[in-house]
Each structure stands twice: as structure tokens, then as C-alpha cells.
């Protein structure tokens, strides 16, 4: 079975390292980026099966980026999980056509459950 590929976008370096470690330990192939400008290029090169996207990115709103991903026929099929430390921002996550929202600090079990549910 091939390893599923997950792209994580967050402007906090600590979170990125943590996500990388956690997901690798749970047998995912991980790519992390800290600037949203690289996202299109990374999607093309890495071709992820799932994207975990922070809502409050430096200079951009993760919900808008999610909408753009969902509008492009090339990337619309990739499930997107939004996550943020501000739980309020997750209230209307469906409007940006994301599959799920996770509030930080998250429970590891919740994160893994949500990832697995959306990969299948």
C-alpha cells in the first residue's frame, strides 16, 4: 500500500515540525510549507491526497485559499481540513467547501480520525 500524501500549510514553524513528526509516525508522507504563496506549486509537484490548511495565515485567509483550491478543476478533488486556534473561524467552514475544521489545540486522536475519514 502506498503512503498517503499530506500537505500541511501553517505559518507557525513549531506546528509544522510537530505535524511533520506526528504524521510521519503515523505512516503518512508529509510536506509542509509556511508561506501560502507556494501552495499551487507544491500541490503540482507533491500531488497531495489531503491538505491541512491553517485559517490565519500571514497575509491570507485559509478559507479563501480553500475556496480557490475547490474552484480549480485540477485540485477540487483534494480534501481540505481547515484548522485554527480561533474556534470562531470554524463556524462556517462549509462555506469555503472544506471537508472539516479542527480547533487548536487539537487532540491527536481527533486529528488522525478526521484525516482518515477524509482520505477514504
Amino acid at each position: 500500500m502506498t503512503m498517503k500524501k499530506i500537505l500541511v500549510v501553517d505559518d507557525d514553524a513549531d506546528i509544522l515540525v510537530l505535524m511533520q513528526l506526528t504524521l510521519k509516525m503515523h505512516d503518512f508522507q508529509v510536506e509542509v510549507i509556511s508561506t501560502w504563496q507556494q501552495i499551487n506549486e507544491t500541490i503540482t509537484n507533491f500531488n497531495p491526497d489531503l491538505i491541512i490548511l491553517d485559517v490565519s495565515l500571514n497575509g491570507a485567509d485559509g478559507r479563501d485559499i480553500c475556496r480557490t483550491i475547490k474552484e480549480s478543476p485540477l485540485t477540487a478533488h483534494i480534501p481540505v481540513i481547515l484548522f485554527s486556534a480561533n474556534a470562531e473561524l470554524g463556524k462556517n467552514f462549509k462555506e469555503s467547501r472544506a471537508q472539516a475544521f479542527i480547533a487548536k489545540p487539537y487532540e491527536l486522536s481527533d486529528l488522525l480520525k478526521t484525516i482518515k475519514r477524509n482520505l477514504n
Partner: protein
Amino acid sequence: MQVFTSVLVLGVFIEIFIVNDINSHKKRKANSMIGLAQVVSTNSISTLRFQDNEAAKNILSELLNVAPDITHAVVFDSSGKIFASYEKLGADSLTIPATLNDQEYVYTEKQLYVKSDIVNDHDRLGRVVLEVALTELIDTKAFEYKLAVTLFLIGLAFSFFVAFIIQAYISRRLLKLVDVMKAAGETGDYSKSIPDDGKDEISVLSRVFNNLMQQVSENQRRKDEFIGIASHELKTPLTSIKGYLELLNGVEEKEPNKQFVQKATQGVHKLEKLIKDLLDVSKIQSGQLELNKQEFDINQLLDETVASFQIVSKTHRIIIEGNPGRCIVVADRQRIEQVLINLLSNAIKYSAGAKTVMVYSKKNEKDLIIQIRDFGIGVSKSEQSNIFERFYRSKSNSVHVAGFGLGLYICREIIEGHGGKMWVDTEKKGSSFYFSLPIINI
């Protein structure tokens, strides 16, 4: 108050006017009677000289035509004996006040007495004394008082009428101000202002109030912004800490290292709850606690919450009694769960040593009442009204229980936001926390 003062001043002025008028009337009367007495005394010189009583009497009786209010007129001779007198028909007997000897005229309650000495070539031949009835003066006085009372009443009615109109105008504006204040207090929306371009005190008050509202609104916006940023900035490192601890917990097998990791994780959970509570309080205070209401069976939620709580609690058994079956409410499921968790964890925290926590669910026509009863230290009567206040910590506890004193405040606000009530009762041993929620009868 202003009306009362004006009326009082009006009354005093009317009284001064009347007293002044009566006094000048009295003086005029006395002068005219003295003049009359002098005429009589001049005319009486010859009658006294010639001892002609009849002529003197005639002179006196003629007075009736000149001044009909004269009741007695007497001419005394030089020895003080009555020389001639006249008495008006039906008049009372004459009593001359002793003080008349020293004064030109004397007023008694109903009469005026005047005198005039009869003098011829420095020779005092006798004296004329007139007694005048004061009916005219009494009538004038009565009339003036009647007029005063009428004027006073008209003035009173008028000032009340004017005050009523002004008051209605002032009250309307003040009530509008109060309405906006109340609405701001209840909804937390401080963005409203009161348009008032006038120049009076109420307009000044309105402008000051508008400025205040603007400041509050601006401060609230800044506070919300701060809380948003603070909560984000606090939660981001907490996410890292929590995540790494979870990783460590997964890989660490050795004791006591694993125990240390678990202790640290517990600390993180507490910190996480604290941040959530502070955020909730600030939302409640700024009226931004949004309830995502939907229909659900609250007794099912109660069963689920108790079941998952039972897994964590190793010290207490949580027993549900009197579950009346399916009970649909329209509420925010997550928030009600938060209330249940808070009350259950309090029941356990404050009853160390006890083994059970009882949960009762009762239904009446309109509400569902949930009671969570512990067998712990209880809540003293004096503290019952305080424990739902923010940052209130029980002072009677001998045992230190960790917490910020926000849980019950948040719980009550959540329940009241649903149209329910929350209260506490002291039991023989321990305490009972209750909350009610309106139910939908299907």
C-alpha cells in the same frame, strides 16, 4: 420640586400683598375718622360753652349721614363726664379701650376708636370719641382672601399644567436615553447614539452619553480584537506543547518518565480549559455568546455525558435516577454538554472522599429539571448567591480546590441564554445544583 417652590413663593407674595393692603386701608380709615372727630370737636365748642346738650346730640346724629359705620359718638366734658352721646340703632354698648388715652386711634378686633380733644384758646373743654364698626374692612379682607385663594389655585393649576407639558417633553427625551442605555446594557451593542441637537442640559447629557457610548464601543472593539489575538497567540504554543507531549506519551515507555509526561499533559488540559473559560467570559460580557440551537434529546446527552465521565472518574460512581425518557429541547448541544461536564466535575472536585454523585432528571409541563447532587462539603447558605459570580471562590473550604471561579458563572449564563434557570440548594450532606430548560412537547 420646582413647582412646589414657585407655589410657595406665590403664596408668600399674595399674603404680603394682602397684609400691606389691609394696613394701608386701616391707616386711611383711621385718618379719615380722626378728621371727622376733629370736625365734630370744633363744632362742639359752642355747645359745650353753652351747655347745649341737644345741639351737641344733633351734631353727633348727623354723623350717621356722613359715616354710617360709626356706631357710637360721645362728647365728654372737661371732667370726663358724658356731655352728649349718639348710639347707632342695634349697636352694642360702648367700651372705650384704656389705651386710647395715649394714642390718637386704637384698633380692636371689630372696632376702630378715635379721639379728638375739644380745645378753644388753649383751653381743653372736653373730648370727642368715635367708635367705628369695621364691617367694611372685614368684608374687604374676606374678599381679598377669597380672591387670593382663587388666584392661588389658578396659579397652582397653571404651573402644574405648564410643568406637566415640560415634564412630558423632558421625560420623553430622558426615557429615550434610558431605553438606549438599557438596550446597550442588555445586548452589549454600544454602537447606538441619540440624535439631540438642542442646547439644554438634556442635550448636553445626550452628547456626553453619545461620546461615552463611542468610547465603550471602541474599547469593546479593541478588547475583542485583543481577546482574538491573545487567544490565538496562547493557543498556538499550547498546540505545540500538547502535540509534543502526545508524541512523547506515545513513545515513552519508561517510568517515571511516562508519569511526568502525563502530569504535564494534565497541566496543559487545565491551561486549555482556562483559556476557553476566559474566552467564554469575555464573549458573555460583550454579548457575543452565540448559541447554535437545534433540537435534540437532552436525556440522551445526559446518558452519553455521564457515561464518558464515568470512564475518567475513578473515585466516584455517577448514578442517573428518574430519567423520564425522550425529552426534546431546542438548545446548543455543545454548550449544554459543557454545563453538564462542569457541574459533574465540580460535584467530584468538591466531594473528595464521597463515592457517589447522583443525577436526577425530572420533567414537568414546560421544563426539564436536572439535579446534580453530591455528598461533599456543601455550599453554605450565605454563599449560595455568590457562587455564580465571576471569579468567586468559596471561602469556607478547608480543602484547596484549583480553579478560577468562572465555571458556574459561565454555566448560569449559558442556561439563562436558553431561557432556563440555574440554582443551588444545600443538602443535609453536600449540595444540589439544578438547572431547568424549556422543553418541546411532541
